[in-house]
């Protein structure tokens, strides 16, 4: 299995760069994520039967597979939101096994950005406040710097004029753009995306995907995306296919 750099370069983004002291972006080619022999069982059903995976800095790997193949479960375990029964997951060298809840939360805050399929914004908060949520408990930068970073990201996703809009007043595509900005606000090492375009129409989905790839590349973030869409997977440097809890196929 081999990772390849994010390929799409169509959009040029003027990044404000990683936040000083925030998530430490790995150097190009450095291993950001390592998954070894991960197994997971729900009751009598073995969902993951020993999965190995690596993701390098700035690389894009797509995970494909039918429903129930274990790809979302794998993503949850990598995010530290599920615990594996066996095996090891390391994010930027930090082993997740045995980590207590608060340490796991801190690691997610610093090193892992997540974009979900469903709209995942807090309905009571504005777009800007939603992007700022992951920075609430980080002390690496002053609140003013966080705020500026969030504004820059929202401008980069084309929502610079909708900073104070609530989710209900944004379209589905716009909400997903806010979610992407939120996932990147702490300059994570890896970005996990679980069917991020699944709820969007084709055009909007393509636009959001492009944005995700561009920002991931610009920020040097490794991108691991679960998708059913072959067109999306075609943009990835590496595609792995899962079946019955195992990676059965991986190609660049």
């Amino acid at each position, binding site marked *: 299995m081999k990772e390849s750099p994010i390929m799409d370069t169509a959009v040029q983004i003027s990044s404000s760069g990683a936040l000083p002291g925030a998530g430490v972006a790995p150097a190009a080619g450095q291993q950001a994520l390592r998954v070894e022999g991960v197994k997971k069982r729900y009751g009598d059903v073995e969902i993951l039967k020993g999965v190995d995976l690596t993701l390098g800095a700035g690389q894009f790997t797509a995970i494909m597979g039918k*429903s*129930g193949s274990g790809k*979302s*479960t794998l*993503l*949850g375990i990598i*995010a530290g*939101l*599920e615990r594996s029964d066996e095996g090891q997951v390391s994010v930027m060298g930090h082993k997740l096994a045995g980590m207590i*809840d*608060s340490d*796991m*939360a*801190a690691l*997610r*805050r*610093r090193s*892992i950005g*997540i974009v*979900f*399929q*469903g709209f*995942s*914004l*807090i*309905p*009571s*908060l504005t777009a800007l*406040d939603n992007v*700022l*949520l*992951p920075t*609430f*408990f*980080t002390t690496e930068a002053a*609140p003013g710097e966080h705020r500026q970073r969030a504004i820059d990201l929202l401008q980069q996703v084309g929502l610079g004029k909708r900073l104070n809009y609530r989710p209900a007043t944004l379209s589905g595509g716009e909400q997903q753009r806010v979610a992407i900005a*939120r*996932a990147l606000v*702490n300059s994570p090492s890896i970005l996990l995306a*679980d*069917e991020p375009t*699944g709820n969007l129409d084709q055009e909007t989905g393509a636009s959001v995907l492009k944005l995700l790839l561009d920002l991931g590349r610009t920020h040097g973030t490794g991108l691991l995306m*679960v998708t059913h869409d072959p067109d999306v997977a075609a943009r990835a440097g590496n595609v792995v296919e899962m079946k019955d809890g195992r990676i059965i196929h991986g190609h660049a």
Partner: protein
Amino acid sequence: MTFHYAASELVFRRGRSLVTAVSIALAVLAAMVLTSLATSYARALRVPIETVGADVIVQQQGDIPPKLEGLVFPHPNALIPAGIVEQIRAIPGVIGLTRAVYMWDLESDRYESVLGIEDSEVGLSGLAQRLTDGKAILATSRAVLLDSDFAGKNHVKVGDTIKVGEESFPVAGIVDAARSGKLVRADVYMPMALAQALASAAPQVKALYPFGPADANLVLVKVNRERLQDVVATVTRLVGTKGVVSSELSMRHALSGVLFLSQSMGLIIAAIIGVFAAAFVWRATATSVAERRREMAILQAIGWSWRHIGQQVLAENLALAVAGTVVGLALAFVAVLALGHVSVTVDLPWDLSSTPHFIPQAAIDRTQTITAPLSVSWITAGIATAGSIVISVLAVLAVLALPQPQPWSLLRSE
């Protein structure tokens, strides 16, 4: 920032926020008003006793004299022997004791109440401070003081003489005892020794009691309030079944029909309301957390720990508690101001009326309508504030301690 988020959340869910804050406000309001009523009511219970200027009034029920003429002891003012008085004086908790002789002087065309009393704050010294004309009398004087109402009604003035029993006494002064309070009301006041001498010589007294020159038929006791209950119990035992021991406690007992307003009952009702409010806050918190499970899962996914989420929910609940408490306190101030005072009509458990029983208005004289101002208790306000905050905190702790679903199960695409 957490408070900014909390404020946004509370405004966003303004319906639930309003209902929760209002329920807290109503609980605080109820607790404040009930305890205010109870406190004022308890204060009102003390008023009749304080009017007499004592904490405990000791009397003894007696018999009806063979003839209603001359000096007689009212029915509830029978002989209290000197020995009993000294035993009362020796009870721990008794601060001071004033002996008195209370009589009616019945003539064919008139009657008057006569009080012979020792020199004390509630006796001759107290009377001296209420002089409106003439001069005070001493324990050794052979003169009397008249109540201003009685003197006015009978056109008697300082320097005149007045007949009490078979003897005449010069009027040394006029006092306004009725309006200034803290004294037993009578028409004629005289030194204790004179009254004892008159009573021991009076045929209708002698017909019933072996009243000696050192005896009394009324004892006013000042008590250390912390030991009131013990003192009352001891005095009651000393005076026996015919004794009438009046105090704040007997007043409370006499008013048991309206006990719901008493301090303890007020607190119980306030506590019950508090329990209901706590249950409501807990329920509202639980519902809110249940509805926001996905939101909380998202927060966990973006790096919030469960402790951070707890702080967030706590901030929201505290904001509601503070808002509800402030509104409740404000409403309580307005309600107490609007109610103004409590008014209680008390059937006095003793008879120190200047009107004998057989006169029709005696029934009126034996009741007293007391008004006591309502006021907000800052201690209660503090307890209500602390209570609502504690309730809010406990509600969050209880709800967050419940098993929560795995966050990823709420977020995953399949």
